[in-house]
């Protein structure tokens, strides 16, 4: 059954390619180079021009105020790093198992809340300074050691990984291949999770405290400062995770099996590999990445109801842009989304008219633009 679905969707991609070629050639009598490559279809030319215009626009802004441009760019990069961490788990699970885990945002938020809970209950009594424990006015004198951040991070990440495996084993394992049903199941789970988290942790925005020993900000060449945690820790963590995942996928036996499984699941299991174990492992890693992202995001941004939706949407957009199941695609997609978000929030001011309210339209345009040219995303391949 799944094979017929695969072949038909594969056929579709080829057909749409042909169709666009046919459309471009109908008007022109003989244009073999257009038909053969369809490399310079009007759509693509329009897209290239648009990207060029955006680059020129940004370059002008950078020349205008370099310090500000650097801050905005770093902002975008740190957002992109966070998006990548979360979305890479999402895309890993999808790539291998064709499961769209709609509860991914819930796992993200739960990871953050768990870490916060641990930090508060384990480390709160540690008073710092001269024992002036009174922190009435919001200035928190509590000193958090490195362990007060790292330990909750590790424990929460592992717990979320285990929860992910449990979800997969209990709810998803026995209806493999029914992708729509699995998506509905994970939606139901995300509804329950969201409500339970609201009951347990309340609706107030909270955040995880980074270690007190870490500096608040780093100084940039332009003379302005930028948050140390955002700029160094989050981006560094994302690079490390990207590298780690790349090594895992490309260099280990497990990675080989995963890559083979992405291409042909049935063949892998026919070769005597316990594919269920591989699936459980992928779900473990994928969920862990969501939980890890939750702790990073809870420290960098905040934790509150609605963040689960927001990060589900971000993950969706990242993988739709980058192509489902592709790690490189997730990186490119996260970069595109993060930078576009950051630039659109600041630079949509033309003369006197402030259009930053409409910044979400730019994100939408990014999504539509990519889908118009590549229906399966930049690095997407037919299922």
């Amino acid at each position, binding site marked *: 059954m799944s094979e017929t679905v695969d072949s038909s969707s594969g056929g579709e991609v080829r057909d749409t390619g042909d169709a666009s070629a046919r459309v471009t050639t109908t008007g022109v009598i003989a244009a073999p180079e257009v038909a053969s490559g369809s490399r310079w279809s009007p759509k693509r030319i329009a897209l290239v021009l648009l990207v060029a215009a955006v680059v020129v626009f940004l370059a002008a802004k950078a020349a205008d105020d370099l310090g500000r441009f650097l801050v905005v760019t770093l902002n975008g990069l740190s957002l992109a790093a966070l998006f990548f961490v979360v979305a890479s788990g999402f895309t890993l699970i999808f790539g291998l198992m064709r499961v*769209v885990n709609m509860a991914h945002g819930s796992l993200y938020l739960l990871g953050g809340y768990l870490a916060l809970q641990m930090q508060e209950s384990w480390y709160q009594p540690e008073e710092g300074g001269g024992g002036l424990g009174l922190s009435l006015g919001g200035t928190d004198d509590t000193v958090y050691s490195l362990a007060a951040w790292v330990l909750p991070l590790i424990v929460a990440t592992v717990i979320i990984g285990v929860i992910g495996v449990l979800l997969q084993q209990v709810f998803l394992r026995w209806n493999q291949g029914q992708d*729509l049903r699995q998506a509905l199941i994970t939606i139901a789970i995300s509804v329950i999770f969201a409500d339970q988290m609201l009951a347990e942790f309340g609706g107030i925005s909270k955040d995880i405290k980074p270690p007190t020993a870490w500096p608040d900000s780093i100084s940039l060449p332009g003379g302005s400062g930028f948050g140390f945690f955002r700029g160094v820790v989050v981006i560094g963590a994302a690079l490390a995770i990207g590298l780690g995942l790349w090594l895992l996928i490309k260099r280990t036996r497990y990675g080989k099996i995963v890559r083979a499984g992405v291409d042909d699941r049935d063949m892998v299991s026919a070769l005597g590999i316990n594919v269920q174990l591989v699936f459980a492992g992928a779900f473990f890693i994928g969920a862990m990445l969501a939980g890890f992202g939750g702790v990073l995001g809870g420290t960098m941004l905040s934790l509150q109801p609605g963040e689960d939706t927001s990060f589900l949407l971000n993950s969706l957009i990242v993988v739709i842009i980058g192509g489902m199941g592709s790690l490189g695609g997730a990186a490119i997609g996260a970069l595109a989304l993060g930078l576009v978000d950051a630039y659109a929030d600041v630079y949509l001011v033309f003369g006197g008219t402030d259009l930053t309210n409409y910044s979400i339209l730019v994100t939408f345009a990014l999504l539509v633009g990519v889908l118009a040219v590549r229906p399966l995303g930049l690095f997407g391949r037919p299922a």
Partner: protein
Amino acid sequence: MTPVSTGRASWIAVAVVVVVAALMPVTPFITEYFLSQILTQTLWLGIAAASLIFLSAYGGMVSLAQVGIYGIAGMAYANLVLADGGSAAAWNPWLALVAAILIGTAAGLGFGLIAARSEGIYFLMITLAFSVLVFYFFSQVTQLAGFGGVNSVELPGFLGNPGQDPVPLYYTTLVAAVLVFLALRGISRTAFGLTLQGVRDEPARMRALGFDVTRHRMLAFGLAAVIAAIAGVLSVWYNRRITPGSINLAQTIDILIIAVIGGLYRLEGAWVGALAYMLIDNYSRDWTPSIGNVLGPERFNTLIGIVFLIIVLASPGGLVGLWESATGRLRRRRQGGGGTPRSTSTAGPEGDPAAGTVK
């Protein structure tokens, strides 16, 4: 792949339901609260769910963009008439109604243009992204809505004040629901509807036969957008306000839950699911056991999530599917195993599958 059954309920059953529904306002034990709070809401939520079910049953596309489209239409209406907040353009409500439906449909066609090229789970994800983007758009753009939304929206004169007399609005939504149901059923029998079902089952073959698969999907999406836009305007008429919070992901999922509870493969399921949802919503608080913080009157979403989960796990056809398999089994037992279950006969132009159930 999925248990598609687009056989039809009998005309008589539909007529009975409509007559019973029409008599509701004069039935002695039906309170005004029940009429307004449950039945009217059931009808317009059912219309929204019907647009989703139409796409899923006849087009094989589970779309989560329907709430986005109904949000666009609702916001368009609320902004065009006299209201508190938004742009308050103070148009004639009828003109605003037409404009809102046109805007919603145009948005739907635009979404369809992009999304129709993808299939299955990709389609679900892209439409979900659309819907959430619409929500963020209206939360950000304070000129159109902003956090507080648009309040005290003007209604067409004949509706009076639904807060005092809910009957005119009830009949309006009832008429709209019946028209939507009949229209969608009628469309499923046209050449377009039949082609659409062909596209649902065998896109590759339909393409080989020369049908433009993408265009059919897009048109179906546009058609569903009309229905969703109607639901959007009705929701504004019912609530007299629209906020970004009422078109967020939770609402998107609620409409999906309604469609799944009712049954993703039958149009009637939309209203069955909506009624079940509204009844659970209103009465579950009385009997939900309190288990600490985990379950209780406050935790409606947990309860509805569990119900949703159970239905997805147990009966992909929803309540209508359960009913069908139950009656099908009963009929087969009565006829000594001779009768074919109706769910196998997909909607064709000929034949009257109702004949079996009447009698």
